[in-house]
């Protein structure tokens, strides 16, 4: 009987804790792992030519069978979708870093799940650095 009571208390605690985490918390999706994720998703290139970098990103995404959805030179961003049974969405942005470098950041979702593993991003940047004839450096 005491065991049953403990179980009951445990279930009540679980319901109480889980009710605190509502689904709207996913709106911002930012926690302590955001910095780590940014590092996984970003690479630095030794160039200042934003337009050429964006055009090379588009070309790399096309080689990966993406259809481009949006492109904006002023914002420095490209988004595209790959359909292969699954839906793979990706947005890539380009920002200046200091006076001689650009940071390229990619973030992708597979269906409704954000990709947070490093390997897929590494694969993308490997393809991109080949196309850019430049080395993709990890952010310090």
């Amino acid at each position: 009987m005491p065991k049953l009571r403990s179980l009951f208390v445990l279930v009540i605690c679980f319901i109480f804790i889980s009710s605190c985490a509502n689904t709207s918390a996913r709106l911002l999706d930012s926690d302590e792992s955001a910095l780590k994720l940014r590092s996984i998703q970003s690479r630095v290139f030794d160039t200042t030519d934003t337009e050429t970098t964006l055009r090379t990103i588009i070309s790399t995404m096309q080689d990966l069978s993406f259809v481009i959805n949006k492109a904006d030179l002023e914002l420095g961003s490209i988004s595209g979708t790959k359909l292969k049974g699954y839906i793979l969405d990706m947005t890539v942005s380009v920002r200046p870093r200091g006076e001689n470098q650009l940071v390229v950041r990619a973030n992708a979702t597979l269906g409704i799940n954000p990709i947070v593993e490093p390997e897929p991003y590494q694969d993308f940047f490997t393809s991109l650095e080949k196309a850019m004839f430049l080395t993709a450096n990890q952010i310090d």
Partner: protein
Amino acid sequence: MDNFKIFRFENKSFGLLIAIILLISGCAGKFDGFVLGESFLADRQIQTRKFSTDDEKALLVAASGVLQDMGYKLEESETKLGVLVASKTRDATKIAEVAIKVLYAFLLVNIPIDHIQTFKVSLITSVSPNGGYLLRATFQRTVINDQNRVTLRATIHDKEIYKDFFDKLSKSVFLEAQKI
């Protein structure tokens, strides 16, 4: 003693089950959505044509005209990066599928059949290393059945489709160049 034997047997079966699950999940492999496929160079060749013009904007104007001729709706454009995106939605019903659906209906079975298809295309221009401009088209197709489920999501790799598209575009570019 018998109970002990049964427990040991169940324990072994459970271990086997876990081993099989681990083996299967291990076979799932890593996600290869960002790895260049073996056919990427062939795809690039099928999807790209070179145009002997030094006017990127005129090439994009001609391309948007062809897309309009084909009933596409322009969704996005960024001429500074040579990007055009368009889509169209059309009926995907096949008469043979409808006939089969009717036959099944007599057996009180409602089978799903293709209903609507959406085509999406991005056209990207870039400077050709040997002069002129390259234009690369990528088409995608999504099919939804009459029960509102997606039955197909794919990039189109059919050589003939791209050939037809570029034939139309070549004519349009010629007409644009001649201002006809």
